[in-house]
Protein backbone atom coordinates (compact mmCIF):
# COMPACT_ATOMS: atom_id res chain seq x y z
CA UNK A 1 0.00 0.00 0.00
CA UNK A 2 1.57 3.23 -1.09
CA UNK A 3 -0.53 5.55 0.99
CA UNK A 4 -0.19 7.46 4.24
CA UNK A 5 -3.78 7.36 5.40
CA UNK A 6 -4.93 10.15 7.74
CA UNK A 7 -7.98 8.28 9.06
CA UNK A 8 -6.13 6.22 11.69
CA UNK A 9 -4.12 9.14 13.10
CA UNK A 10 -7.23 11.35 13.14
CA UNK A 11 -9.24 8.94 15.25
CA UNK A 12 -6.21 8.24 17.45
CA UNK A 13 -5.97 11.97 18.09
CA UNK A 14 -9.66 12.12 18.93
CA UNK A 15 -9.31 9.19 21.32
CA UNK A 16 -6.23 10.73 22.93
CA UNK A 17 -8.13 14.00 23.51
CA UNK A 18 -11.04 12.08 25.04
CA UNK A 19 -8.72 10.15 27.38
CA UNK A 20 -6.87 13.30 28.43
CA UNK A 21 -10.24 14.92 29.15
CA UNK A 22 -11.31 11.88 31.17
CA UNK A 23 -8.11 12.07 33.23
CA UNK A 24 -8.72 15.78 33.84
CA UNK A 25 -12.36 15.26 34.84
CA UNK A 26 -11.33 12.35 37.07
CA UNK A 27 -8.85 14.68 38.79
CA UNK A 28 -11.50 17.37 39.21
CA UNK A 29 -13.89 14.86 40.78
CA UNK A 30 -11.26 13.55 43.17
CA UNK A 31 -10.30 17.14 44.02
CA UNK A 32 -13.95 17.94 44.73
CA UNK A 33 -14.16 14.93 47.03
CA UNK A 34 -10.93 15.94 48.77
CA UNK A 35 -12.05 19.46 49.65
CA UNK A 36 -11.00 21.26 46.45
CA UNK A 37 -7.32 20.31 46.48
CA UNK A 38 -5.63 17.83 44.23
CA UNK A 39 -2.30 16.60 45.55
CA UNK A 40 -1.05 13.99 43.12
CA UNK A 41 -2.14 11.93 40.14
CA UNK A 42 -4.07 8.78 41.01
CA UNK A 43 -3.33 5.38 39.51
CA UNK A 44 -6.47 5.72 37.38
CA UNK A 45 -5.37 9.07 36.03
CA UNK A 46 -1.89 7.75 35.26
CA UNK A 47 -3.47 4.86 33.35
CA UNK A 48 -5.70 7.20 31.34
CA UNK A 49 -2.84 9.57 30.60
CA UNK A 50 -0.59 6.67 29.54
CA UNK A 51 -3.08 5.43 26.97
CA UNK A 52 -3.87 8.99 25.86
CA UNK A 53 -0.16 9.59 25.29
CA UNK A 54 0.15 6.31 23.42
CA UNK A 55 -2.62 7.31 21.03
CA UNK A 56 -1.24 10.84 20.75
CA UNK A 57 2.19 9.51 19.73
CA UNK A 58 0.58 7.18 17.20
CA UNK A 59 -1.39 10.12 15.74
CA UNK A 60 1.67 12.36 15.66
CA UNK A 61 3.74 9.71 13.87
CA UNK A 62 0.93 9.33 11.31
CA UNK A 63 0.57 13.04 10.66
CA UNK A 64 4.35 13.44 10.61
CA UNK A 65 4.62 10.78 7.89
CA UNK A 66 1.94 12.55 5.86
CA UNK A 67 3.80 15.85 6.22
CA UNK A 68 7.11 14.26 5.21
CA UNK A 69 6.00 12.00 2.39
CA UNK A 70 2.56 13.22 1.36
CA UNK A 71 -0.61 11.16 1.46
CA UNK A 72 0.38 9.22 -1.64
CA UNK A 73 3.83 7.74 -2.04
CA UNK A 74 5.14 8.14 -5.57
CA UNK A 75 7.88 5.71 -6.56
CA UNK A 76 11.22 7.28 -7.42
CA UNK A 77 13.88 9.47 -5.91
CA UNK A 78 12.74 12.66 -4.24
CA UNK A 79 15.42 15.24 -3.69
CA UNK A 80 14.75 18.02 -1.17
CA UNK A 81 14.65 21.65 -2.20
CA UNK A 82 14.93 23.92 0.87
CA UNK A 83 13.95 27.52 0.26
CA UNK A 84 15.61 30.56 1.83
CA UNK A 85 13.31 30.55 4.88
CA UNK A 86 14.17 27.01 6.00
CA UNK A 87 17.80 27.68 7.06
CA UNK A 88 16.63 30.84 8.83
CA UNK A 89 14.01 28.93 10.81
CA UNK A 90 16.54 26.17 11.52
CA UNK A 91 19.11 28.64 12.85
CA UNK A 92 16.47 30.35 15.01
CA UNK A 93 15.36 27.01 16.43
CA UNK A 94 19.00 26.05 17.06
CA UNK A 95 19.46 29.29 19.01
CA UNK A 96 16.33 28.50 21.07
CA UNK A 97 17.64 24.97 21.63
CA UNK A 98 20.99 26.28 22.83
CA UNK A 99 19.22 28.78 25.13
CA UNK A 100 17.02 26.05 26.61
CA UNK A 101 20.02 23.74 27.03
CA UNK A 102 21.98 26.41 28.88
CA UNK A 103 19.01 27.30 31.03
CA UNK A 104 18.35 23.66 31.88
CA UNK A 105 21.92 23.37 33.19
CA UNK A 106 21.39 26.55 35.26
CA UNK A 107 18.11 25.15 36.61
CA UNK A 108 19.74 21.85 37.58
CA UNK A 109 22.63 23.64 39.30
CA UNK A 110 20.12 25.81 41.18
CA UNK A 111 18.20 22.67 42.16
CA UNK A 112 21.33 20.90 43.42
CA UNK A 113 23.13 23.78 45.10
CA UNK A 114 20.59 26.41 46.19
CA UNK A 115 17.02 25.17 46.64
CA UNK A 116 14.84 22.48 45.07
CA UNK A 117 13.17 23.24 41.77
CA UNK A 118 9.81 21.58 41.19
CA UNK A 119 9.83 18.51 39.00
CA UNK A 120 7.17 20.17 36.82
CA UNK A 121 9.49 23.10 36.02
CA UNK A 122 12.41 20.79 35.27
CA UNK A 123 10.18 18.65 33.08
CA UNK A 124 8.78 21.68 31.25
CA UNK A 125 12.22 23.02 30.30
CA UNK A 126 13.54 19.58 29.35
CA UNK A 127 10.35 18.81 27.41
CA UNK A 128 10.65 22.10 25.51
CA UNK A 129 14.27 21.22 24.71
CA UNK A 130 13.29 17.82 23.36
CA UNK A 131 10.41 19.30 21.38
CA UNK A 132 12.61 21.91 19.68
CA UNK A 133 15.19 19.18 18.99
CA UNK A 134 12.48 17.04 17.42
CA UNK A 135 11.32 19.92 15.22
CA UNK A 136 14.94 20.51 14.12
CA UNK A 137 15.32 16.83 13.22
CA UNK A 138 12.01 16.92 11.35
CA UNK A 139 13.15 19.97 9.37
CA UNK A 140 16.43 18.24 8.53
CA UNK A 141 14.60 15.12 7.37
CA UNK A 142 12.03 17.07 5.38
CA UNK A 143 14.26 19.66 3.71
CA UNK A 144 17.80 18.26 3.67
CA UNK A 145 17.58 14.50 3.28
CA UNK A 146 16.74 12.88 -0.03
CA UNK A 147 14.21 10.09 -0.10
CA UNK A 148 13.52 7.13 -2.28
CA UNK A 149 10.27 5.24 -2.68
CA UNK A 150 10.81 1.74 -4.01
CA UNK A 151 8.24 -0.32 -5.86
CA UNK A 152 7.72 -3.95 -5.06
CA UNK A 153 6.03 -6.43 -7.28
CA UNK A 154 2.46 -7.05 -6.36
CA UNK A 155 3.11 -10.79 -6.05
CA UNK A 156 6.60 -10.75 -4.63
CA UNK A 157 8.25 -13.77 -3.06
CA UNK A 158 7.89 -12.40 0.42
CA UNK A 159 4.68 -13.96 1.75
CA UNK A 160 3.51 -10.92 3.71
Amino acid at each position, binding site marked *: MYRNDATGPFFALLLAAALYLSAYLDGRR*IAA*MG*GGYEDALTVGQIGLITFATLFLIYALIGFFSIWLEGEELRPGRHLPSPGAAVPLVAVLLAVIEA*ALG*GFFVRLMLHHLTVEPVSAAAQGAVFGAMMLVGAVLLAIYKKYYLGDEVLVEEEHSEVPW
Partner: protein
Amino acid sequence: MNPKVERIEVYVDEGKEPIRVLTEPPFEVELDTRTLPDGAHRLRIVTVFKDGSREEREIPFEVDNLPDAFVDGIDEGQRVRGKVRFNVRVGDYEKPKEAAGVSAWLYVLSTVLVLILVWVFFAVSPTAEKVAAQMAVGGAKAEVEAPGGEGGAPVNEALFNQGKELYAANCASCHQADGKGLPGVFPGLAGSQVVADVKAALERITKGGNGMPAFNQLSPEELAAILTYIRNDFGNHFGGVSVDEVQKLLGGGGQAAAPAADEGLLAEGEQVYLQNCASCHQPDGSGMAPMFPALKGNANLKDAKFVIERILKGKGAMPSFAQLSDRQIAAVASFVRAKLNDFGPVSEDEVKSLR
Protein backbone atom coordinates in the same frame (compact mmCIF):
# COMPACT_ATOMS: atom_id res chain seq x y z
CA MET B 1 26.92 2.45 -33.18
CA ASN B 2 23.81 1.66 -35.09
CA PRO B 3 24.87 -0.79 -37.88
CA LYS B 4 22.71 1.08 -40.43
CA VAL B 5 24.68 4.32 -39.92
CA GLU B 6 27.67 4.94 -42.19
CA ARG B 7 28.92 8.26 -40.79
CA ILE B 8 27.88 11.40 -38.89
CA GLU B 9 28.90 14.80 -40.24
CA VAL B 10 29.00 17.90 -38.06
CA TYR B 11 28.53 21.32 -39.71
CA VAL B 12 28.51 24.83 -38.28
CA ASP B 13 26.17 27.40 -39.83
CA GLU B 14 26.04 27.24 -43.63
CA GLY B 15 29.52 25.66 -44.02
CA LYS B 16 29.85 23.31 -46.97
CA GLU B 17 32.61 21.26 -45.37
CA PRO B 18 31.89 19.41 -42.11
CA ILE B 19 34.07 20.36 -39.13
CA ARG B 20 34.15 16.70 -38.10
CA VAL B 21 33.13 13.39 -39.63
CA LEU B 22 32.43 10.68 -37.08
CA THR B 23 32.59 7.03 -38.09
CA GLU B 24 33.32 5.23 -34.87
CA PRO B 25 33.05 5.92 -31.10
CA PRO B 26 33.77 7.94 -29.16
CA PHE B 27 31.55 10.52 -30.87
CA GLU B 28 33.10 13.45 -29.07
CA VAL B 29 33.45 16.79 -30.84
CA GLU B 30 35.39 19.81 -29.58
CA LEU B 31 34.23 23.12 -31.00
CA ASP B 32 36.36 26.19 -30.28
CA THR B 33 33.76 28.94 -30.15
CA ARG B 34 36.51 31.58 -30.16
CA THR B 35 36.83 30.96 -33.92
CA LEU B 36 33.22 32.09 -34.30
CA PRO B 37 31.97 35.67 -34.01
CA ASP B 38 29.65 36.47 -31.05
CA GLY B 39 26.00 36.00 -31.93
CA ALA B 40 23.54 33.36 -33.12
CA HIS B 41 24.83 30.23 -34.84
CA ARG B 42 23.53 26.78 -35.60
CA LEU B 43 24.98 23.32 -35.46
CA ARG B 44 23.92 20.80 -38.08
CA ILE B 45 24.32 17.09 -37.39
CA VAL B 46 23.87 15.06 -40.56
CA THR B 47 23.56 11.30 -40.21
CA VAL B 48 24.34 9.39 -43.45
CA PHE B 49 22.91 5.87 -43.60
CA LYS B 50 24.34 2.95 -45.56
CA ASP B 51 21.41 2.94 -47.96
CA GLY B 52 22.29 6.53 -48.94
CA SER B 53 19.49 8.26 -47.04
CA ARG B 54 20.32 11.24 -44.75
CA GLU B 55 18.81 12.73 -41.66
CA GLU B 56 19.61 16.21 -40.47
CA ARG B 57 19.22 17.82 -37.07
CA GLU B 58 19.73 21.50 -36.30
CA ILE B 59 20.71 22.90 -32.93
CA PRO B 60 20.70 26.71 -32.66
CA PHE B 61 23.11 28.23 -30.12
CA GLU B 62 24.60 31.57 -29.20
CA VAL B 63 28.27 32.44 -28.79
CA ASP B 64 29.18 35.08 -26.20
CA ASN B 65 32.95 35.23 -25.84
CA LEU B 66 33.27 39.00 -25.69
CA PRO B 67 31.45 40.70 -22.81
CA ASP B 68 29.18 43.70 -23.34
CA ALA B 69 30.17 47.09 -22.05
CA PHE B 70 28.51 48.18 -18.81
CA VAL B 71 27.83 51.89 -18.61
CA ASP B 72 27.71 53.40 -15.14
CA GLY B 73 26.40 56.99 -14.89
CA ILE B 74 23.85 57.26 -17.63
CA ASP B 75 20.72 55.17 -18.03
CA GLU B 76 18.70 54.29 -21.07
CA GLY B 77 16.16 57.00 -21.92
CA GLN B 78 17.58 59.28 -19.21
CA ARG B 79 17.18 63.03 -19.84
CA VAL B 80 20.57 64.79 -19.53
CA ARG B 81 21.86 68.39 -19.75
CA GLY B 82 25.32 69.94 -20.04
CA LYS B 83 28.35 67.77 -19.49
CA VAL B 84 27.68 64.18 -18.56
CA ARG B 85 30.33 61.96 -17.03
CA PHE B 86 29.97 58.23 -17.04
CA ASN B 87 32.16 55.12 -16.73
CA VAL B 88 32.33 52.29 -19.19
CA ARG B 89 33.30 48.90 -17.79
CA VAL B 90 34.05 45.76 -19.66
CA GLY B 91 34.41 42.49 -17.82
CA ASP B 92 36.87 39.71 -18.55
CA TYR B 93 35.46 36.20 -18.98
CA GLU B 94 38.98 34.73 -18.80
CA LYS B 95 39.60 36.07 -15.34
CA PRO B 96 39.00 33.43 -12.63
CA LYS B 97 35.89 34.02 -10.58
CA GLU B 98 36.41 35.40 -7.09
CA ALA B 99 34.55 33.66 -4.29
CA ALA B 100 31.70 35.90 -3.24
CA GLY B 101 30.59 36.29 0.39
CA VAL B 102 31.76 34.12 3.30
CA SER B 103 32.94 30.56 2.92
CA ALA B 104 30.79 27.72 4.15
CA TRP B 105 33.28 27.01 6.94
CA LEU B 106 33.11 30.56 8.20
CA TYR B 107 29.33 30.37 8.15
CA VAL B 108 29.29 27.13 10.17
CA LEU B 109 31.92 28.39 12.61
CA SER B 110 30.10 31.66 13.25
CA THR B 111 26.82 29.80 13.80
CA VAL B 112 28.48 27.42 16.27
CA LEU B 113 30.08 30.38 18.06
CA VAL B 114 26.74 32.16 18.36
CA LEU B 115 25.11 28.99 19.69
CA ILE B 116 27.87 28.52 22.28
CA LEU B 117 27.50 32.15 23.39
CA VAL B 118 23.73 31.75 23.74
CA TRP B 119 24.22 28.53 25.72
CA VAL B 120 26.79 30.13 28.03
CA PHE B 121 24.59 33.20 28.55
CA PHE B 122 21.64 31.11 29.64
CA ALA B 123 23.83 28.82 31.77
CA VAL B 124 25.72 31.44 33.77
CA SER B 125 24.01 34.83 33.49
CA PRO B 126 22.46 36.34 36.65
CA THR B 127 19.19 36.85 34.71
CA ALA B 128 18.92 33.10 34.10
CA GLU B 129 19.70 32.51 37.79
CA LYS B 130 16.86 34.87 38.75
CA VAL B 131 14.42 33.01 36.50
CA ALA B 132 15.62 29.67 37.94
CA ALA B 133 15.08 31.02 41.46
CA GLN B 134 11.54 32.02 40.48
CA MET B 135 10.90 28.50 39.21
CA ALA B 136 12.30 26.95 42.40
CA VAL B 137 9.98 25.68 45.12
CA GLY B 138 10.76 28.79 47.17
CA GLY B 139 9.69 31.01 44.28
CA ALA B 140 6.47 29.07 43.81
CA LYS B 141 5.88 29.28 47.54
CA ALA B 142 6.10 33.07 47.41
CA GLU B 143 3.41 33.05 44.77
CA VAL B 144 1.22 30.75 46.86
CA GLU B 145 1.73 32.94 49.88
CA ALA B 146 0.85 36.20 48.17
CA PRO B 147 -2.90 35.73 47.53
CA GLY B 148 -3.66 34.81 51.13
CA GLY B 149 -1.49 37.60 52.47
CA GLU B 150 -0.85 35.64 55.64
CA GLY B 151 2.92 35.30 55.49
CA GLY B 152 3.35 37.84 58.28
CA ALA B 153 1.60 35.99 61.15
CA PRO B 154 4.07 35.56 64.06
CA VAL B 155 5.43 32.08 64.77
CA ASN B 156 5.10 30.83 68.35
CA GLU B 157 8.38 29.04 69.07
CA ALA B 158 6.91 26.70 71.70
CA LEU B 159 4.13 25.64 69.32
CA PHE B 160 6.68 25.21 66.54
CA ASN B 161 8.81 22.86 68.67
CA GLN B 162 5.77 20.92 69.87
CA GLY B 163 4.63 20.67 66.26
CA LYS B 164 8.01 19.33 65.24
CA GLU B 165 7.66 16.44 67.69
CA LEU B 166 4.05 15.76 66.70
CA TYR B 167 5.03 15.85 63.02
CA ALA B 168 7.77 13.26 63.62
CA ALA B 169 5.29 11.02 65.46
CA ASN B 170 2.26 11.36 63.16
CA CYS B 171 3.19 12.69 59.75
CA ALA B 172 6.85 11.99 58.93
CA SER B 173 6.26 8.34 58.02
CA CYS B 174 4.37 9.47 54.92
CA HIS B 175 5.39 13.08 54.27
CA GLN B 176 8.99 12.28 55.27
CA ALA B 177 11.14 14.07 57.84
CA ASP B 178 12.23 16.65 55.26
CA GLY B 179 8.62 17.35 54.19
CA LYS B 180 9.35 16.35 50.60
CA GLY B 181 6.95 13.40 50.71
CA LEU B 182 7.30 10.54 48.24
CA PRO B 183 6.59 11.77 44.71
CA GLY B 184 3.47 10.18 43.30
CA VAL B 185 2.52 8.57 46.60
CA PHE B 186 2.64 11.09 49.45
CA PRO B 187 2.60 14.79 48.54
CA GLY B 188 5.41 17.10 49.67
CA LEU B 189 4.57 19.91 52.09
CA ALA B 190 7.20 22.37 50.84
CA GLY B 191 5.39 25.11 48.92
CA SER B 192 2.12 23.15 49.19
CA GLN B 193 -1.05 25.08 48.40
CA VAL B 194 -2.92 23.14 51.06
CA VAL B 195 -0.34 24.02 53.73
CA ALA B 196 -0.45 27.69 52.66
CA ASP B 197 -4.19 27.78 53.40
CA VAL B 198 -4.77 27.32 57.16
CA LYS B 199 -8.40 26.26 56.76
CA ALA B 200 -7.63 23.73 54.02
CA ALA B 201 -4.67 22.31 55.95
CA LEU B 202 -6.74 21.99 59.13
CA GLU B 203 -9.56 20.24 57.26
CA ARG B 204 -7.09 17.88 55.63
CA ILE B 205 -5.61 16.95 59.01
CA THR B 206 -8.89 16.56 60.89
CA LYS B 207 -10.96 15.04 58.11
CA GLY B 208 -8.32 13.42 55.91
CA GLY B 209 -9.01 12.99 52.21
CA ASN B 210 -7.16 12.26 49.01
CA GLY B 211 -5.70 9.10 50.49
CA MET B 212 -4.80 10.65 53.85
CA PRO B 213 -6.55 9.36 56.98
CA ALA B 214 -8.24 11.77 59.41
CA PHE B 215 -6.25 12.77 62.52
CA ASN B 216 -9.25 14.00 64.49
CA GLN B 217 -7.87 12.62 67.75
CA LEU B 218 -5.56 15.64 67.96
CA SER B 219 -6.48 18.50 70.31
CA PRO B 220 -6.78 22.10 69.03
CA GLU B 221 -3.43 22.87 70.65
CA GLU B 222 -1.76 19.92 68.94
CA LEU B 223 -3.35 20.90 65.63
CA ALA B 224 -2.11 24.48 66.00
CA ALA B 225 1.37 23.13 66.81
CA ILE B 226 1.50 20.88 63.74
CA LEU B 227 0.13 23.63 61.50
CA THR B 228 2.67 26.11 62.86
CA TYR B 229 5.47 23.66 62.25
CA ILE B 230 4.59 22.53 58.70
CA ARG B 231 3.85 26.09 57.61
CA ASN B 232 7.26 27.32 58.75
CA ASP B 233 9.69 24.51 58.02
CA PHE B 234 10.86 22.78 54.83
CA GLY B 235 11.50 26.24 53.34
CA ASN B 236 7.91 27.37 54.02
CA HIS B 237 7.30 30.83 55.50
CA PHE B 238 3.52 30.87 55.70
CA GLY B 239 3.33 32.22 59.26
CA GLY B 240 2.19 30.79 62.59
CA VAL B 241 -1.25 29.47 63.62
CA SER B 242 -2.68 30.11 67.09
CA VAL B 243 -4.79 27.72 69.19
CA ASP B 244 -7.63 30.29 69.12
CA GLU B 245 -7.55 30.34 65.33
CA VAL B 246 -7.80 26.54 65.20
CA GLN B 247 -10.67 26.49 67.71
CA LYS B 248 -12.48 29.16 65.71
CA LEU B 249 -12.06 27.19 62.51
CA LEU B 250 -13.22 23.99 64.18
CA GLY B 251 -16.40 25.71 65.27
CA GLY B 252 -15.63 26.60 68.88
CA GLY B 253 -15.85 23.17 70.44
CA GLY B 254 -12.81 21.55 68.97
CA GLN B 255 -14.62 18.78 67.13
CA ALA B 256 -17.99 18.95 65.44
CA ALA B 257 -20.99 19.07 67.80
CA ALA B 258 -22.73 15.76 68.35
CA PRO B 259 -25.85 15.43 66.27
CA ALA B 260 -28.97 14.81 68.30
CA ALA B 261 -31.05 12.90 65.78
CA ASP B 262 -30.30 9.78 63.71
CA GLU B 263 -30.44 11.91 60.59
CA GLY B 264 -27.56 13.94 61.99
CA LEU B 265 -25.56 10.75 62.60
CA LEU B 266 -26.29 9.57 59.07
CA ALA B 267 -25.27 12.95 57.63
CA GLU B 268 -22.00 12.77 59.55
CA GLY B 269 -21.58 9.19 58.39
CA GLU B 270 -22.02 10.28 54.81
CA GLN B 271 -19.25 12.86 55.24
CA VAL B 272 -16.91 10.28 56.81
CA TYR B 273 -17.80 7.84 54.04
CA LEU B 274 -17.07 10.35 51.26
CA GLN B 275 -13.74 11.26 52.81
CA ASN B 276 -12.49 7.80 53.70
CA CYS B 277 -14.38 5.14 51.78
CA ALA B 278 -15.77 6.61 48.54
CA SER B 279 -12.46 6.60 46.66
CA CYS B 280 -12.57 2.77 46.68
CA HIS B 281 -16.20 1.83 47.35
CA GLN B 282 -17.42 4.73 45.14
CA PRO B 283 -19.69 7.56 46.35
CA ASP B 284 -22.83 5.57 45.58
CA GLY B 285 -21.49 2.42 47.25
CA SER B 286 -21.34 0.48 43.98
CA GLY B 287 -17.65 -0.43 44.49
CA MET B 288 -15.26 -1.39 41.70
CA ALA B 289 -15.40 -5.12 41.08
CA PRO B 290 -13.35 -7.19 41.61
CA MET B 291 -10.98 -4.97 43.62
CA PHE B 292 -13.39 -3.05 45.80
CA PRO B 293 -16.67 -4.76 46.80
CA ALA B 294 -20.00 -2.96 46.52
CA LEU B 295 -21.58 -1.90 49.82
CA LYS B 296 -24.96 -1.15 48.35
CA GLY B 297 -27.15 -4.25 48.46
CA ASN B 298 -24.40 -6.17 50.27
CA ALA B 299 -26.00 -8.79 52.59
CA ASN B 300 -22.79 -9.05 54.65
CA LEU B 301 -23.54 -5.63 56.08
CA LYS B 302 -26.55 -7.01 57.93
CA ASP B 303 -24.15 -8.08 60.68
CA ALA B 304 -23.23 -4.83 62.52
CA LYS B 305 -20.27 -6.52 64.23
CA PHE B 306 -18.86 -7.52 60.84
CA VAL B 307 -19.08 -3.95 59.61
CA ILE B 308 -17.47 -2.42 62.71
CA GLU B 309 -14.64 -4.97 62.80
CA ARG B 310 -13.91 -4.54 59.12
CA ILE B 311 -13.66 -0.77 59.64
CA LEU B 312 -11.50 -1.14 62.74
CA LYS B 313 -9.15 -3.86 61.49
CA GLY B 314 -9.42 -3.80 57.74
CA LYS B 315 -8.80 -6.86 55.61
CA GLY B 316 -6.90 -7.61 52.42
CA ALA B 317 -6.61 -4.43 50.37
CA MET B 318 -8.73 -2.49 52.86
CA PRO B 319 -6.67 -0.66 55.51
CA SER B 320 -7.66 -0.27 59.13
CA PHE B 321 -9.56 2.93 59.97
CA ALA B 322 -8.99 2.60 63.71
CA GLN B 323 -7.81 6.20 63.82
CA LEU B 324 -11.44 7.30 63.39
CA SER B 325 -13.33 8.10 66.59
CA ASP B 326 -16.03 5.76 67.94
CA ARG B 327 -18.62 8.27 66.88
CA GLN B 328 -17.23 8.51 63.36
CA ILE B 329 -17.13 4.74 62.99
CA ALA B 330 -20.67 4.48 64.35
CA ALA B 331 -21.73 7.20 61.91
CA VAL B 332 -20.14 5.65 58.84
CA ALA B 333 -21.29 2.13 59.79
CA SER B 334 -24.83 3.49 60.24
CA PHE B 335 -24.60 5.23 56.89
CA VAL B 336 -23.50 2.15 54.93
CA ARG B 337 -26.03 -0.04 56.74
CA ALA B 338 -29.05 2.26 56.87
CA LYS B 339 -28.60 4.53 53.85
CA LEU B 340 -26.98 2.16 51.36
CA ASN B 341 -28.96 -0.79 52.69
CA ASP B 342 -32.04 -1.37 54.82
CA PHE B 343 -30.25 -2.40 58.03
CA GLY B 344 -30.37 -0.53 61.32
CA PRO B 345 -27.95 2.08 62.66
CA VAL B 346 -24.90 1.38 64.87
CA SER B 347 -24.27 3.01 68.26
CA GLU B 348 -21.01 4.41 69.64
CA ASP B 349 -21.15 1.88 72.48
CA GLU B 350 -21.13 -1.02 70.01
CA VAL B 351 -17.99 0.40 68.44
CA LYS B 352 -16.36 0.98 71.82
CA SER B 353 -17.04 -2.61 72.86
CA LEU B 354 -15.41 -4.01 69.73
CA ARG B 355 -12.38 -1.70 69.63
